[in-house]
């Protein structure tokens, strides 16, 4: 079964897109025109929870953060395999359940390895 689609069936999406863009544009223009303008130094400095900002935001950060971030990405991405499994949970039955447990077990082995190696040790 193949859903028939042609250029015209994308028309609603196109209209919605135009509406969204137009809304953004119009509100920006209107607030700019309508709103009162008071320019002071305090108002133009970036707001950082009430603390005056220090240095450039694009300064180098610790490598430790990189390791945690990359590990997060890896484990996070593996989760997408669970979506198709969850959708077909009933059809796959017990066998699918076991296979998913094997998969999760492998992931956990990797996770324990990471912990034992101290990659998540923030203080080190």
């Amino acid at each position, binding site marked *: *079964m*193949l*859903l028939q689609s042609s250029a015209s069936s994308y028309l609603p999406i196109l209209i919605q897109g135009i509406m969204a863009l137009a809304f953004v544009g119009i509100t920006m223009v209107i607030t700019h025109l309508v709103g009162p303008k008071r320019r002071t130094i305090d108002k133009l400095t970036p707001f950082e929870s009430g603390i005056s900002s220090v240095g450039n935001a694009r300064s180098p950060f610790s*490598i430790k953060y*990189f390791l945690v971030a*990359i*590990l997060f*990405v*890896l484990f996070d*991405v*593996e989760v*997408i*395999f669970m979506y*198709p499994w969850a959708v077909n949970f009933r059809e796959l039955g017990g066998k699918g359940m076991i296979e998913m447990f094997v998969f999760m077990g492998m992931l956990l082995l990797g996770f324990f390895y990471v912990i034992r190696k101290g990659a998540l040790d923030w203080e080190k």
Partner: protein
Amino acid sequence: MSHFLIVGAALFSIGLYTVFSRKNAILVLIGIEFMLNAAILNLVAFGRYDRIDNEGQVFAIFAIVLAAATVAVALAIIINVYKQYKTIDPDKIKDMKY
């Protein structure tokens, strides 16, 4: 259908151009990701014709996961290279004698 193919081909070409023109390993990596994602887009687009098995979509998931794994390794390598050379320009990293 052909729209997806055109977008896919365009992304692939952009990625190819990026790989060849950039002097920064991270940007080259981004170019490679462009190429991979062009392919993934094509897989999903062709998957429309394959409604029984949905092979295209499943392949796309695998490709995404493997691309993420590649990036993780790549960034680790690039950081290591930076520690050694203090640059990540692939053209400047030439120690070996020819």
